[in-house]
């Protein structure tokens, strides 16, 4: 009876013992091929495994690996047609992988877990890629030959719509960032006159880049990409038509609202004309026609150009020099 109970314990604990055996072998830094020897030793210590539970049919001996029978000029795409883990008996390469045993080489491919763990590209050899592309070619279309340069593309297709797709492994295939659409268009390609352009710039504000003259509209308020694309086109349409409209309150635009500096009716014009009149350049005369005559002078025009350029473009070497020359000419220095 004791032997029975002990046998029961052995059979119950069979899994535990074999588990322990496995753990012990791993901590001793041996490899899978050595593992099989250890586990078969463990089995010899538990002889009742055969008469309890399932009957172990004697295993067939494994034949020689397929690599021995492979001809050199075989069709490799038939051996590895799809992505499959590494099969050491199907790959006729003497691959070694893993940390080398002390004073030795990395372990061989037979029973090597490291080779199975990493993704292999054995199904994507150049021959296989060529075959796949041959089959895929009928579904592809040609790029129109007239649009070879970027300039031509911009001329005929000025609106650029950008979107992003995401592919990754996870609980869900979807990525909410994929719905974002951004629409880029150069304002020079739209039919806008001066007032419409200024109004458009005021309406869009931050979305316009002055250096590249590109208006960017980014939409992400709708849940689907198609919806965001339609919304962006709608926004562009509305902006365009609204900027052509002239409202009644636009007449109240003050000098502070102006985007560019204009010299007419500015303090600079008044100052220079007053100074010239006081210097009595045009003789001892006063009145409107004197001012107009002064305005028509070449030096005054040059001064006007230099001042507008200075105010609009900012201070730089060339603008300051131009201003200096103009002032010297106007005041006869």
């Amino acid at each position: 009876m004791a032997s029975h109970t002990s046998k029961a314990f052995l059979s119950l604990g069979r899994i535990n013992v074999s588990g322990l055996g496995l753990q012990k072998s791993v901590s001793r830094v041996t490899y899978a091929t050595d593992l099989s020897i250890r586990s078969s030793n463990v089995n010899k210590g538990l002889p009742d495994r055969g008469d309890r539970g399932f009957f172990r049919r004697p295993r067939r001996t494994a034949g020689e690996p397929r690599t021995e029978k492979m001809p050199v000029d075989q069709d490799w795409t038939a051996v590895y047609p799809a992505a499959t883990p590494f099969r050491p008996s199907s790959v006729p390469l003497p691959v070694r992988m893993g940390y080398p045993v002390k004073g030795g080489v990395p372990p061989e491919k037979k029973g090597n877990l490291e080779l199975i763990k990493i993704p292999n590209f054995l199904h994507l050899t150049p021959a296989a890629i060529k075959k796949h592309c041959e089959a895929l070619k009928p579904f592809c279309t040609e790029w129109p030959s007239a649009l070879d340069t970027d300039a031509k593309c911009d001329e005929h297709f000025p609106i650029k719509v950008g979107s992003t797709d995401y592919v990754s492994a996870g609980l869900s295939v979807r990525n909410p960032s994929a719905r974002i659409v951004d629409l880029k268009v150069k304002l020079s390609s739209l039919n806008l006159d001066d007032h419409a352009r200024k109004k458009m710039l005021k309406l869009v504000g931050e979305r316009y880049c002055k250096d590249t003259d590109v208006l960017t509209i980014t939409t992400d308020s709708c849940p689907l990409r198609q919806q965001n694309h339609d919304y962006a086109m709608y926004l562009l349409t509305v902006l365009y038509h609204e900027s052509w409209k002239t409202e009644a309150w636009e007449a109240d635009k003050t000098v502070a609202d102006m985007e560019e500096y204009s010299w007419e009716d500015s303090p600079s014009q008044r100052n220079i004309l007053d100074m010239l009149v006081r210097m009595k350049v045009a003789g001892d005369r006063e009145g409107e026609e004197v001012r107009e005559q002064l305005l028509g002078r070449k030096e005054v025009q040059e001064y006007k150009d230099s001042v507008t350029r200075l105010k609009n473009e900012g201070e730089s070497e060339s603008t300051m020099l131009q201003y200096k020359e103009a002032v010297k000419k106007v005041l006869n220095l």
Partner: protein
Amino acid sequence: MAAPMALRRELFSLARKISGVSHLTPRALGACSSHRKCNIIRSHLPLASSTSFHTATLFLSTPSSITVTEEPDTLFQKVSLLVKGHDRAVLDSYEFFATMAAKELGININKVHELPKDMERFTLLKSVHIFKNHRVQYEMRTHYRCIELSHITGCTAQVYLEYIQRNLPEGVAMEVTKTAMEKVPDHILEPMWEDHPIDDKSSQ
């Protein structure tokens, strides 16, 4: 009671010793085959079409019917693939595959470059309780590869991207940024206020 049991045990052990050698290899293969099955199940789901696609190329039987529609094709000025992974060797192989596929399909490749890797490091306490001075540091490395293609039509892009994405290896993620080109739509060519009075506020 004990004797016959002992005999049986010895017989079984003898049998095992005789067929000891044959035990070894099936065991090893047994361990591997369980792995293989899991992998096959995992890889079947995304690659189902590619397996059927592969059989199509092998059989070369029915030619696939190609439908041509009148709808104008989208034109992509630039398609940029960014591939991210933990293993640089895998990304190298994938880049070779992607560039070769693009060359075969006649897609012009602008630039293939490698962005510098990102390392996310964090420091944790080594022990479960106290021992603040003993820590352990982990890091996660993300390697990048960027492939830029230019001047692709919508059909070609769809075909190429599907092929590339179906053969994306495990543990690698991809982001595709497409820049499509469009003509200026008809309702933006001319302002509508010139024909109608200003107080006609109905927008198109």
